[in-house]
């Protein structure tokens, strides 16, 4: 019995040691804030084309701290984030290298990459309003600022203010209107909420469907994901209940945030990492962003998917996305004060 037990343990340890040798040499290691289910199709495509194997580690929090602590020993080559504030932290901590690549500068417009070419946006997500088809007449709300008007009392749903997406939206309002006006806006918005902020963006669309509220704040791609959800057809009904409203079309444009990436300073496979980054900005991958994830491509030569086209063209807020990252802490303080 005792002998068996020892053998059992030795067996496990051997398994773990030998699995090491399975690693290929020609590879690139990615630390990703984005879930593997959403990026694996891109990587499979990349490996097919280049023969470079992609290893992914996904976590939603703490990857920055891990890279900092690993220092020169880090196995990571490329970092991918879903929010500019996180990406900017890698820049602030001097973890990214400058990349002078014609491919990248051709494919990505200037306001969507770092001025020193250290980080690059890979896709855009617009934060828009979802309004009830039944209860909200078209054109009755045009600007994000109007969410603070008393006529929406008890009619608005959002996820908690401290979520990255809302924090970034508030940062854009601070940039446009100043801290004081932004705080007034946020505190009136809280007064207008139909219920305590809870759930994710999808849950807000569902709340409109259920009649809990009339207006919700949402990222565009959730609409696409609900509309074509075959696994859970119930969500198609939620999508049917709402209209999408791009805000501030007659002034600064609709707020956008970006998902992006950069190559790490201590990367051991820099060339592979740059190749992967370039690959992600090429038309083929950019199309995948729009057809599979319903995000907007950064590469303007890419023709939008049919679905994205059907939502209509819109004017985007051209505020350099770095500003969003800089204003995020101020936004969080406002969120704390107004209790959003």
């Amino acid at each position: 019995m005792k002998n068996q037990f020892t053998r059992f343990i030795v067996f496990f340890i051997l398994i773990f040691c030998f699995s090491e040798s399975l690693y290929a040499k020609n590879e690139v290691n990615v630390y990703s804030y984005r879930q593997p289910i959403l990026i694996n199709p891109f990587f499979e495509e990349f490996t097919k084309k280049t023969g470079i194997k992609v290893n992914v580690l996904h976590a939603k929090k703490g990857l920055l701290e891990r890279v900092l602590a690993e220092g020169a020993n880090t196995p990571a080559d490329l970092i991918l984030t879903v929010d500019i504030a996180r990406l900017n932290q890698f820049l602030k901590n001097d973890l990214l290298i400058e990349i002078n690549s014609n491919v990248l500068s051709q494919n990505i417009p200037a306001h969507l990459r770092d001025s020193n070419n250290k980080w690059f946006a890979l896709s855009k997500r617009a934060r828009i309003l979802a309004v009830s088809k039944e209860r909200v007449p078209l054109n009755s709300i045009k600007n994000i600022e109007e969410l603070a008007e008393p006529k929406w009392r008890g009619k608005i749903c959002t996820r908690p203010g401290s979520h990255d997406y809302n924090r970034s939206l508030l940062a854009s309002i601070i940039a446009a209107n100043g801290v004081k006006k932004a705080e007034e806006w946020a505190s009136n918005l809280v007064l207008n909420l139909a219920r305590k902020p809870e759930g994710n963006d999808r849950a807000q669309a569902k709340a409109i469907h259920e009649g809990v509220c009339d207006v919700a704040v949402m990222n565009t791609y959730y609409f696409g994901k609900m509309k074509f959800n075959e696994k859970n057809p119930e969500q198609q009904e939620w999508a049917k209940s709402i209209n999408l409203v791009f805000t501030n079309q007659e002034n600064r444009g609709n707020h956008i945030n970006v998902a992006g990436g950069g190559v790490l300073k201590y990367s051991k496979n820099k060339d592979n990492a740059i190749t992967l980054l370039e690959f992600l900005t090429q038309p083929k991958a950019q199309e995948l962003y729009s057809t599979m994830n319903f995000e907007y491509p950064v590469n303007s030569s890419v023709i939008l998917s049919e679905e994205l086209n059907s939502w209509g063209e819109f004017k985007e807020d051209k505020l350099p996305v770095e500003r969003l990252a800089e204003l995020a802490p101020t936004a969080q303080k406002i969120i704390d004060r107004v209790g959003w």
Partner: protein
Amino acid sequence: MSNWNIWSVPVGIISLIIISPVLAIFYSALLGDTSLWPHLFSTVLPRYLLNTLILMIGVGSLSLFFGISTAWLVSRYEFPARSFFEWALLLPAAVPAYIIAYTYTDLLEYAGPVQGYLREFFNWQNSQDYWFPNIRSMEGAILVMSSVLYPYVYLLTRASFITLPISYFQTSAIYGRKPFFSVALPLARPAIIAGLALVLMETISDFGTVDYFAIETLTLGVFNVWLGMNSLSGAAQISSILFLIVVVLLTLELIARRNQRFYEKHSRQQTLELENVSNIKKILFFVICLAPLFLGFLIPVSVLLNFVIKGYSIINFREIIDTTITSISISFIASLTIMFLSFLMVVVATYKSNTFQKSVIFLASCGYAFPGTILAVGIVVFVGWLNELFYFQISYFVGGFLVLIFAYTLRFLAIGNGSIRSGVTRINPNLIDASKTMGRSFLTTIKKIILPLTYTYILVGGILVFVDILKELPITLLLRPFNFETLATYVYQYASDEMLEESSFAALIIVLAGLGPVVFLSRTIKKYSLN
């Protein structure tokens, strides 16, 4: 006799190494600037603190109620399905809190089957026509968390109840006292408190449920400060408050217990026989035992099963088998490590240490009180320092694997220690002295006396740790090597986007993988108590 001996010094050093990441968190808290505090104090902190306390009191009380009442009933009375409940009451321990939160929301929200049925039955048109409690609330959080955390109390309390000698009950009967209040409860106190401490620490450090239910606790505050204001040191400072709350709680308990004795004076005696009761009581007891099992296991499992049957789940057998093997192996290796260390630490702290050494050993088990992600960051920082000092030439995979085992040890040592300590306090010190008088070495005393007498508690702790590691998410997520997926991380990539349906099959496997050990454990305890 000097206490600085070959037992206490190495164990003290091990404890120090284990606690180092926590020291790294404190260090970062002390270094960081405190400019955020006036803002935090005047805005969110009082609310966070109040919510945290309400949640702790709520979950603590309900878990005690579920855990003690069921433990007493199955140990003392004969009623239908009693022997089934004996082990089945442990099952909720295998259900991760983030999964139970999700399944309850799915069941009880507006679009869920419960409200849908009510609307149909009463012909209500929409949410304005009636009132229904919101599951995403403080009450909801207390309910769902208690229904998966009470097994800590149940398991330890029951292990204590079944080893009580019958003579105590006979004595209480002679004096006409109620056996539960005069004997069982007071004597089980170390076990009850140990269970309660685990429940409270788990409650304080929970992120999954409070995030899902949008309950603003200190833990949620930690993340807002860290990620929203880019202040890791501010987050470390709030975490340190959490830690202090736990230390205060545990110290109060130590003081309260100081002058009491819980061991049996005489050698082992016959234990209690089951009592027959009236039919009405039988039904009542059945219902009391069914309630927590229903809430913590049957409901969430049926919701998951329903997702799978409806075909919402992605079922990729190869992937699932691979992740299951990984999960079970790492949980197994880590729980062996933890129980070995726990046993060593508790025994040395009890018999071979002075007060200072005791406190060091005690502190080593406090990692349980930190939110997992913060602990993981502490470990990342600590291992980073070590690496700079020694520059290990270990491959990333093996290195990452060792770091994970280390992290689990820091996180779950409290469970091992708590369970073994409640066993050791029941050993009559005269036995140890007798062994010493006969010239036996301490090692022999451990082998011949302590180990056999704490066997049940070692198993109990081991299984709890195993099941906990199986469910563990934030630490695994951040510290794992590349391409390393456990069942929990696999489920998480869907659950984090509120699409748990798609990974419901894997979620069911987590629960099933916890089932085997739970049943095995219950059998062993029973066998042991009969011998």
